[in-house]
């Protein structure tokens, strides 16, 4: 008799821990072959609230780490993902119905994406900052800083890459995040959470929710502690609605066309200009 596999319970990732939804709800995720794959948690608005609390409390520490240190940690994520390739291959193949070769390519690209953004951390202010020549005896410079808590609606497909593409730039800029995984393809995002939990990224900097996008996006839009949103995984209509309610605290909301681009980082950063007199 062949051995019975131990299947993983896919849970949420909040504040460095893997809780179930406070609501106790799960939903069924099927593979491309329509067969049952898993019952991930169906996050509620209260889970979102908890995730934002975790993100908020972790943000200052993450933003306050040196850019070099953040770059090291993003690179570390790439290293750990490399070692976990196999599990991602299985999940991606099952969900997306692609060959393991195609799945592997996606994982490699995701790993390379971490490496690419890792290298940006300590170069951003050189590229996006400036020393401004004002007319007067003042030293004046502008430098990018983190925005705060950024919510991400990850793209559906490619499932892993879609999450990494949106997540890595937000982290590179020193933000903490609540990533809402693709409703249909959530499993690699949760496994990504497991990778993050064993990397050196501080607890709470990344929080991952699975569940119904349609249920969560209005709460994301109206949450006053969320400063920015990447709406990659939302429909146009949902985006418009989120923009409408997001105006209440003037959220920075963006959808990107360019795959890897520093603007993905900078769109979730603020520019701070500092003046100081020059004298004796």
């Amino acid at each position, binding site marked *: 008799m062949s051995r019975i596999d131990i299947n993983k319970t896919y849970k949420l990732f909040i504040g460095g821990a893997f809780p179930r939804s406070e609501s106790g709800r799960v939903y069924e995720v099927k593979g491309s072959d329509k067969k049952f794959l898993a019952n991930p948690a169906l996050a509620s608005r209260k889970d979102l609230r908890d995730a934002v609390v975790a993100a908020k409390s972790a943000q200052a520490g993450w933003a306050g780490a040196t850019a070099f240190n953040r770059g090291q940690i993003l690179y570390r994520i790439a290293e750990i993902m490399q070692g976990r390739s196999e599990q991602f291959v299985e999940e991606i193949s099952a969900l997306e119905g692609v060959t393991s070769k195609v799945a592997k390519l996606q994982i490699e690209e995701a790993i390379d994406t971490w490496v690419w953004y890792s290298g940006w951390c300590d170069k951003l202010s050189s590229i996006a900052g400036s020393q401004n020549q004002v007319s007067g005896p003042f030293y004046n410079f502008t430098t990018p800083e983190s925005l705060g808590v950024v919510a991400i609606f990850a793209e559906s497909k490619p499932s892993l890459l879609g999450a990494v593409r949106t997540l890595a730039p937000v982290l590179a800029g020193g933000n903490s995040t609540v990533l809402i995984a693709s409703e249909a393809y959530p499993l690699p995002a949760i496994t990504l959470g497991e990778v993050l939990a064993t990397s050196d990224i501080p607890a709470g900097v990344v929080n991952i929710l699975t569940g119904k996008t349609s249920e969560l996006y209005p709460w994301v839009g109206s949450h006053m502690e969320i400063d920015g949103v990447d709406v990659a995984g939302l429909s146009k209509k949902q985006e418009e609605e989120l923009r409408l309610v997001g105006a209440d605290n003037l959220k920075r909301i963006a959808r990107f066309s360019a795959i890897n681009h520093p603007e993905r980082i900078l769109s979730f950063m603020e520019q701070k200009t500092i*003046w100081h007199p020059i004298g004796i």
Partner: protein
Amino acid sequence: MSEFDYASAPESKAIANIASNYGLFIGGKFVEPKQGKSFNTFNPATEELLSKIGYADKTDIDAAVKSARLAYTRVWSKMPAKERGKYLYRIARIMQERAREFAVVETLDNGKPIRESRDTDIPLAAAHFFYHAGWADKLEYAGFGNKPKPLGVVGQIIPWNFPLLMLAWKIAPALAAGNTVVLKPAETTPLTALLFAQVCQQAGVPEGVVNIVTGDGVTGAALVNHTDVNKIAFTGSTDVGKAIARSISATKKTATLELGGKAANLVFEDAAIDEAVEGIVNGIFFNQGHVCCAGSRLIVQENVADEILEKLKKRMSLIRVGDPMDKNTDLGAINSKEQLNKIHEISNSGDAEGANRWSPELKLPSKGYWYPPTIFTGVSQSHRIAREEIFGPVLSVLTFRTPGEAIEKANNSMYGLSAGIWSDKGAKILWAARQLKAGVIWSNTFNKFDPASPFGGYKESGWGREGGRHGLAGYLASEAKVSK
């Protein structure tokens, strides 16, 4: 021996040729509003009528946007960037030539002291055109891609506190980047924008590149909601800014918003005290406190608070309040009755909530709208006067014991436009500057502006930056983002 009271030294009004009425500036010409409606603009220092101004409604906005679109597609987007820049240089030069006239008209319409319009507003406005003129043919080096593209037609709405300067902040970068504009000045201060329209005519700016439409909030809303406008640039209140964000949420329009503030001005024990006192005065009483980035919350270290307050009160007693046209006036008129009422309303809440009000003894003119320089001590974070933007010459004073507490209080606001730091210790300044959640940090200075220096807020103080290389981004199409 008699006292050394400065005799009145009024600037001559003769230089200001204010017409009895103005039309809208559309397609390079002054035209009558289609409905023939108008409104009045007054001198807030005397309540005298200055001029009748054309009121633009939806159909006028439509005509202005059409003219801007036509100018964009047929002329402005096809013109070599170098030539575009030359028009901006011309504008800058003519503004300098006519600087005194602009200053006088600005002071008459706005109520700000002639010294400020003469020494700050007008020179800075001209400088903004000079600065951006030079960008026009260098955009590919600005870091927004090799072939940065303009957005098209930009709708711009500006406030009454720095009428011409805000116009320059808006129009100069928009034109330099290759856009055409429809600009709506504030209802109470339309005159220098209309004078600027004449400058455009003198400079030979192609018809329709700059359109000036005058009116009120309804006019502004028509501009925001016009379907052929690609971008909205707004400076004004946070409430209106949010309303604009909502209005454009289901459109392809982008926006830059420069909104309200409640800046903390932190004074540490090791500050250069006399210069800090000057900085506090300049921070809150410059332009009657009608400044979005005004240092309206003084947060001072407890062990120097008494000394600072004593010096501040002495210094406030020297502030010369009165006729804005007098060259020695430091604090002019409040821009409108409506604004004066608002200042009264919020300040009165300070009394009601138990804060202690102090103003120097002075006599305010009997006509016009006036408010004395005022400080409130004994203010706590929960008081309305510590949270809401007053937009007047009213300072709330709070204290702190440790640097950490200073930052905590400073950041405890929905706004994040600007902040001040006063300390002689470099490391402490950089530490505080990093902690403060604000887009502009003035250390050992306050209320300094420059075309090369990006300006704009964190949090609910706005979207985007104006000025400097960063300000160009708001007028160029993004390489990486989907325009909704």
